[in-house]
């Protein structure tokens, strides 16, 4: 071999030695780092008696981020060891299933989960229950529902009823020309909220002038609403599955110059959405309390760990927020809601 090889790109052997040392050093640092993560973050609080695994749909969403914050605060307050996991994106139920399995292996006292796909998590949760773990569902039910020992969530149907009751009175004597901006058709949230709204309005789905699918996406809702207004300029009431859809609908209404002529009702309860109510973009918004779901579910986990029975269903509340209260329909003003909203 040559004594000091010079390569085609002009570098000498010394450069290669330096690079080699850098590679070995870098690899060593990374290895130590990986082990450190495992030991440091995992090993902490090992003496805590109660471990709770909390699995949400994804961390890329302010709703779940709000829930995470509240869960971690509650865990700290009560001395519970919290392991917080999530899917990589909304719909990634494979990761959630793996998380349930691994938390079962770990030996958690309870698993609290908001499943991305209600039916997919049932087998793993059953195995967890068999191992003596308490299973609590938050925000979204498991399918079948009895796999969970407790379900802590908004009553979406009730919230929809409130929307409908408010809208019916708010519209006054006018004949309601209704546009429905639905989310994902087979989702239970969509079915319940819409069903409640129709009941509160006293109407059937077929009586709506327009029925569109938006998947709760703001852009889709905007496009759908624009097309609707072009075909039905007499729309005066829009029901939206959630706030992103509501914002999309409002933009379309604004672009069409119909502000004030169309009433929008929605549900979610983020501070961003409540501001929309406060400035008159939305007629009514129904609050959800992800933080309360986190607190209630963790407290239930502690109780169950002590052998106490926990309720099968906890309704975390769904007050209606509006600038224009209507007689006979309970509501709270936006100013008050701004203290209770999330995000």
């Amino acid at each position: 071999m040559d004594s000091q090889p010079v390569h085609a790109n002009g570098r000498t052997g010394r450069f290669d030695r330096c690079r080699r040392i850098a590679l070995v050093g870098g690899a060593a640092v990374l290895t130590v780092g990986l082990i450190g993560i495992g030991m440091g973050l995992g090993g902490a609080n090992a003496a805590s008696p109660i471990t709770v695994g909390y699995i949400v749909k994804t961390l890329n969403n302010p709703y779940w981020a709000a829930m995470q914050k509240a869960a971690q605060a509650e865990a700290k307050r009560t001395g519970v060891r919290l392991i917080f996991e999530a899917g990589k994106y909304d719909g990634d139920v494979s990761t959630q299933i793996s998380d349930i399995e691994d938390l079962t292996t770990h030996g958690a006292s309870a698993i609290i989960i908001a499943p991305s796909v209600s039916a997919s998590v049932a087998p793993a949760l059953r195995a967890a229950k068999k191992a003596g773990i308490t299973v609590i569902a938050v925000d979204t039910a498991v399918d079948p529902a009895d796999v969970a020992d407790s379900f802590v969530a908004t009553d979406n149907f009730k919230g929809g009823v409130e929307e409908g009751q408010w809208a019916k009175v708010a519209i006054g004597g006018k004949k309601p020309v209704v546009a429905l901006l639905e989310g994902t058709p087979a989702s239970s949230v969509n079915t319940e909220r819409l069903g409640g709204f129709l009941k509160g309005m006293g109407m059937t789905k077929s009586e709506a002038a327009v029925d569109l699918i938006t998947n709760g996406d703001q852009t889709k809702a905007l496009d759908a609403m624009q097309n609707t207004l072009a075909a039905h300029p007499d729309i005066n009431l829009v029901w939206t599955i959630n706030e992103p859809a509501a914002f999309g609908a409002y933009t379309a209404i604004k672009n069409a110059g119909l502000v004030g002529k169309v009433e929008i009702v929605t549900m979610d309860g983020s501070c961003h959405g409540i501001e929309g109510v406060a400035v008159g973009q939305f007629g009514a918004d129904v609050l959800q309390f992800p933080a309360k779901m986190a607190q209630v579910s963790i407290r239930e986990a502690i109780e169950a760990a002590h052998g106490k029975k926990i309720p099968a269903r906890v309704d975390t509340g769904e007050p209606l927020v509006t600038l224009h209260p209507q007689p006979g329909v309970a509501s709270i003003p936006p100013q008050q809601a701004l203290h209770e909203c999330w995000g």
Partner: protein
Amino acid sequence: MSATAAPSPGRRARHAAALAAEQLRAAGLLGPILAILAEIAIFGGLAPRFATTRNFLLIAEQAMEIATLAIGQTLIILVAGIDLANGLVMVLASVVMAKFAVAGVPLVVAILAGFAVTAGFGLVEGVLVALIELPPFIVTLGFFNVALALALLISNEASIINLPPGLLALGNNVSIGGTEFPVGVFAMLAVLLITWYALRETAWGRHMYALGDNAPAARLTGVRVNRVLISAYVTAGVIYAVAALLLLGRTTVANPDAGQTANLESITAAVIGGISLFGGRGSIVGPVLGAFIVGMLQNGLTIVGVDALYQDIAIGLLVILAVMLDRLQRGRSVR
């Protein structure tokens, strides 16, 4: 010290071990195997319930879908391509199979329909890459969106549930000697075995490696380059349909929102397993090991109680570490 004395058994064993290690190193598998052993040592030390047969079988079940996708992905990477669509093609197949099955179509036909979809996608991709000479990155990126849209369309944007048990068969366990083995893992191993044999023992395998290593050379020596290229994409497609059955078995529904990150996960598994992204190099066993390395990391970290966000950091570090180590042990002469 007679020169003709037979070497002692200890010496022979060490010699054999050194030979085996060298073979593994040349195949790019030594690093991944050492990584698995290291993970077992570390997590086994941190959590007593990690190093159990039951947990290892669990890891296999958690990793088998990505491992299968990685086998198909590797075929395409070997011929100097890349597949960004494989996750969604798998999901589309699962949706098609489910939709047919729920509509009452006989199970076998429903499953074959899924295979037809993935093989069809592979055929079109292969033709675009081989005959129209479009870059694989762009072609498969486009098909990612096509498959996603079709999956949402056919499923009506909602999960298809209440599937017939036959469709979910790969999610079951089979009892062998008192232990429950996931059936899907055997399916993945079957795919690995067949692909390994084809790449190692047939002319097609030689042509695949030659094509990825030096395509002009392959063409000049009479390898039917276009045919081999297209066959790589179609074969990968068939493998993705198997992954679709694994997905259905594990999640029991056909969910059009699934598979969004599976493309990168399968590429990660391949890279960690020693496959060169330039093509023409690496053993097909590597990507499966790579999938297990990542799966074992996630499993171990969750059992030890690490939050999701930090797990993502760990996986990112792992990939960089794997590439560094691969570089070190293979030297600079190999690209």
